[in-house]
């Protein structure tokens, strides 16, 4: 039976990239359906009626949503180039830190991004604390998953690109290379890794997009 794999993504979604990386690393052919979230296709709404977001993976007509759920599905369906370790404890650790990334690290960085002045200074503190956990996780390792890119690297992959975009847009530093040398090194290694390096959205487009987003948000929060 011919395998049919489709992936709904937007040009910029960092979490959709997780699925692209997994499919590419495993050498699985797939078709991309590019979405514009301000004008969602009827197919997207059909395949992800609950959240109406990207990414959505459609495999032989069956749809799966939520990027980390999709990653586990890809891992379990196509066994080549395993992304998760075999040991249950190691697997639990990768899942724990992936959740930490989504529940704590990302929101804390958004919190810095959406603010300015004193509010931003205050927001930087918890963001840096969260990044310090990642620094400790990486000690002695090239990638979060060890010698090769794995599940946890894909879960944190957005950091490699988005932190520098955010910092350029904000004109502020969150990630101090001197204080977080392992994390800085990981970002560079991941950014330039084969397969990964071909996947990044155009940086100038990202800067434009996030500049506009930040201006809109700051204006919204400003006292009238």
């Amino acid at each position, binding site marked *: 039976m011919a395998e049919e794999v489709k992936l709904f993504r937007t040009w910029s979604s960092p979490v959709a990239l997780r699925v692209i990386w997994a499919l590419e690393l495993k050498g699985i052919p797939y078709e991309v359906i590019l979405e514009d979230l301000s004008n969602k296709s009827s197919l997207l709404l059909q395949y992800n009626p*609950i959240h109406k977001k990207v990414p959505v993976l459609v*495999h032989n007509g*069956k749809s*799966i*949503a*939520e990027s980390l*759920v*999709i990653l*586990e*599905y890809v891992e*379990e*369906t196509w066994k080549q180039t395993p992304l998760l370790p075999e040991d*249950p*404890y190691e*697997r*639990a650790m990768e*899942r*724990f830190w992936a*959740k*930490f990334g989504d529940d704590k690290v990302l929101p804390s960085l958004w919190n810095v991004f959406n603010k300015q002045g004193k509010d931003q200074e205050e927001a930087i503190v918890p963001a840096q604390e969260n990044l310090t*956990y990642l620094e400790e996780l990486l000690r002695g390792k090239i990638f979060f998953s060890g010698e090769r890119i794995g599940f946890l690297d894909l879960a944190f992959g957005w950091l490699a690109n988005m932190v520098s975009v955010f910092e350029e847009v904000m004109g502020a530093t969150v990630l101090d290379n001197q204080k977080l040398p392992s994390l800085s090194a990981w970002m560079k290694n991941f950014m330039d890794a084969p397969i990964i390096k071909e996947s990044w959205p155009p940086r100038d487009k990202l800067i434009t997009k996030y500049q506009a987003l930040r201006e809109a948000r700051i204006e919204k929060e400003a006292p009238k």
Partner: protein
Amino acid sequence: MAKNDDVKVLGAWPSPFVMRARIALNLKSIDYEFLEETIGSKSQLLLQSNPVHKKVPVLIHGDKPICESLIIVQYIDEVWTSAPSILPSDPYDRAIQRFWAAYVDDKLFASMRQIKSLEGEEKKAMVEQATEGIVLLEEAFEKCSKGKPFFGGDRIGYLDIAFGSILGWLRATEKMGEVKLLDEAKTPRLVKWAGRFCADGAVKDCMPETDKLIELAKVLMAKMKGAPPKQ
């Protein structure tokens, strides 16, 4: 028993998340020591074994701590591979159960727990949000159960554990808020499922009593009202 086989659960009786770990261990017939945290304080052991979140549950297997309830449930399923399986074997069925378990945590439980402190239009809107979510789970139940008693089929599985563990608080919210969340008319299958879940051998000893939860909620709400405003 070798040290590596020691199983402890750090928990608290009202927590639905702690229940999940206990139900999973019960399903696998694993003996464990339940170390109950005092509500309002955190033990040294908790702070040491979950320094990142400082929350229960923590599963301590031998000398390894595992945190986050659904991650603990998956760990238990992967370490103790004897029947019953908690997650189904088919990757698509697993993905569906993981999707809905995340929905329970990120959307349903979050909206449900706000209801008891809301009034008027705000309360009405939150109740509507929660009941819509439960209607979605009724549809999911139809698809997952395929005519069998549980989301997991013949026996309790991952999504039964994820959703069923919040039934105590769901009932407490219904009583305190004087609202109906699990409705015979809208979600008849789930009403029956809830009865079966709560009566299950792996569940009934760790499901907290609704009235005790209500008592606790009132104490906590009073404390919060008396506390200085949060920054």
